[in-house]
């Protein structure tokens, strides 16, 4: 899993990053709210951890803006106060979980693992992006016409829709779409990107996947 950690206290930021990396997560760190928004916009994360008390923009404001941009990434809030109001505002603003400082790293890791397990089981069945409508259960893609996709095409397109407008690397695609296939490589990614491009064109969609073989890909209008 790739995690964004937004925490302004340098020492805590460092400790959490090291702890999460030691259990195999990929962690990007930022130190204020503005950096958090810009990182969330440009990278695909599985979890975003936001401190509430941060300079420039506080965690609640960051969360609201992330959600306003249509980003549905799982968000965990870190709050220094044990006050119920703070947690309620966080959850009401679109957070998925919270931890009260001081927290144990063990508990943080346990929660992330629980999240990861659930991720594998929980699937959205209807997705929309611009003129595209994807039913992942029926494997049907609809724009002006409709077409049925193969299951890996559905996985790839869902991942691109969830992270639309972001540059996604080959490796990120392989880690999410072909995570159980050690033989999958950038050649395979390229073939599936090519399938999706032609199938989107064939149903009259204006949505594009920008990018070259072996490079990064962006799903965009």
């Amino acid at each position, binding site marked *: 899993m790739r995690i964004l950690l937004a925490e302004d206290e340098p020492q805590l930021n460092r400790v959490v990053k090291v702890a999460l990396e030691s259990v195999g997560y990929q962690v990007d760190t930022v130190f204020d709210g503005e950096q958090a928004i810009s990182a969330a916009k440009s990278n695909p994360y599985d979890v975003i951890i936001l401190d509430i008390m941060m300079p420039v923009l506080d965690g609640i404001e960051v969360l609201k803006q992330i959600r306003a941009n249509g980003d549905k990434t799982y968000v965990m809030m870190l709050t220094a106060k044990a006050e119920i109001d703070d947690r309620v505002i966080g959850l009401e603003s679109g957070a998925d979980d919270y931890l009260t400082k001081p927290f144990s790293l063990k508990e943080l890791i346990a929660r992330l693992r629980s999240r990861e397990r659930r991720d594998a089981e929980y699937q959205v069945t209807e997705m929309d992006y611009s003129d595209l409508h994807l039913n992942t259960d029926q494997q049907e893609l609809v724009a002006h*016409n*409709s*077409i*049925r996709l193969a299951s890996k095409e559905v996985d790839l397109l869902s991942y691109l829709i969830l992270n639309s407008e972001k540059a996604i690397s080959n490796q990120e695609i392989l880690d999410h779409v072909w995570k159980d296939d050690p033989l999958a490589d950038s050649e395979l990614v390229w073939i599936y990107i090519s*399938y999706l491009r032609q199938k989107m064109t064939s149903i009259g969609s204006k949505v594009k996947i920008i990018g070259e073989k072996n490079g990064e890909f962006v799903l965009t209008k």
Partner: protein
Amino acid sequence: MSIYGKYEPTLERILNELLTRLENLNSDYQARNGQNLFEHLNGRIKTNASMVEKCQRKNLPVNVNSALRINRDSIGIRIVCNFIDDIYTCIDLLETMPDITVVTKKDYITNAKKNGYRSYHMILDMTVPEVDVDGNQPGHYFVEIQLRTIAMDTWASLEHEMKYKHDIKNPELISQELKRVADELASCDISLQTIRQLIREEN
């Protein structure tokens, strides 16, 4: 007496000429590219009975003008291709023929019908030495061309069978499944074409 009257031999001649021309086009293409332009070809003159039936259904007088001017499918040719790209290559080649003008084009591949039907339809106006129904010489005759892939053709034949079978128990479910399969076949057609393009880019 046939509804086509004295023009029937001309219809036969035009059909045969176009079929021969298309076969030659295919062999030339095969010689140059090592691949077929199309997989197979069918042609027919609409039977007297079905042309008469069509005129009656459309409340037209049963005469040669209705058969050759108002209805434009007395001569029909179906071109069945291996790949979607080849359909568009065929269309380009037809359009360059000097004695042929394209009257209408309907692209049901890009704009599939609601039931899932995919095919490319054209009405051609062909100039021929013989006299036509309006007394012009050289004369003008309409020809209907349908172009599709093998997958689209297979689908259409099954859909056609269903349309004329009135004792199907669950027509909604069958229509829904036919539509799903049409979209799956379209997906396969595009995957095949994508693979062909990727192979060609590598060479």
